[in-house]
């Protein structure tokens, strides 16, 4: 029955449609993918904090008021997490549970800026550029690196 439904010719036609690449993007995607392997982190005892919450995704197509968007992101590597509040001018962050530490922002070109988190885990970052970034956080007890994200 399946064969009648999708004979070889149909299957190939469907495959051709699926593989269509009008913008000739595929070679670029492959090249990007190859290059990115160099960014693999290989340090032991470095927890990966996944992007578990992004306010931008909660109501992605909601029409916002004229006011500026304040974006909230949460990266989780239980028991530690990092919360970011991002506005156009600045980025503030909070290590949870609150603890002193240091935070390094990385771009694909390398480390960008290093700041200290205060006694209650609060830190400020300058406005970050367009490209992907990730944060490395180190407290007295844990080390984590967040997922890559564009802010």
């Amino acid at each position, binding site marked *: 029955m399946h064969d009648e439904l999708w004979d*070889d010719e149909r299957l190939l036609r469907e*495959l051709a449609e699926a593989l269509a690449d009008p913008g000739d993007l595929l070679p670029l*995607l492959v090249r990007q993918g190859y290059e*990115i*392997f160099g960014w693999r982190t290989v340090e032991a005892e470095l927890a990966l904090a996944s992007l578990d919450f992004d306010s931008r995704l909660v109501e992605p197509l909601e029409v916002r008021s004229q006011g500026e968007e304040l974006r909230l992101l949460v990266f989780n590597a239980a028991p530690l997490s990092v919360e970011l509040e991002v506005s156009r001018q600045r980025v503030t962050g909070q290590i949870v549970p609150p603890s002193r530490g240091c935070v390094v922002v990385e771009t694909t070109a390398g480390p960008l800026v290093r700041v200290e988190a205060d006694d209650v885990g609060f830190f400020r970052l300058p406005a970050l550029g367009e490209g992907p970034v990730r944060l490395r956080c180190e407290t007295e007890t844990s080390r984590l690196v967040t997922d890559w994200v564009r802010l």
Partner: protein
Amino acid sequence: MDGESVLSRGSLPKEESALDEWVAAAARGDVRAWQELVDRYSPLLLGVLRRYRLERAEAEDVAQTVWLRLVEHLGELREPRALPMWICTTAGRECLRQLAASRRAVPRDPLDDAWQASLVEPDPVDDVERAQRREALLSALGELPEKQRRLLVLLATDPPPSYSEISQRLGIAVGSIGPTRARALERLRACAPVRALLDEAVPHQAGARGDRRA
């Protein structure tokens, strides 16, 4: 000749190896295994990007973020099928983020129907179905061994190259193209995502939506 000798060397998985072995090797830091995964699943990533109709530069940004993130998450992908699903989910989410960001950048009237319409095909149901077919086929394609995969990609170009050209490009005898093609298509049909797709398609044929073109 077709890469098999290279792949068999050392501790690398063989061409026929199950997907999870490639994933495990890449997670251990094997660059060749990583490249194999990129080769296998770039078409799927592209397929997801097409679903969201991003500008070209936006699509490139999303792809970069997805690859960067996949490198770090490889170690968590235990099931063979987890990888294509991970790509679909992560890329889909990043596309939505991108759409939300670009929508935010330009003030828009909530009643701007023309802009809304530009995001979807004239027939949204058909559009979603096509995207699902595309992603199922491309997920399955990634599970095929290299030789079969490359052959199907060549045969799916329009117009397809002649058998003698295929023979040259893939390094297989003209006489074995037909049988390889048959095996590859059989294997594609047997892959879980395509099986699910075909099972779903049966009621259409049975008349539930018999008005659809055959």
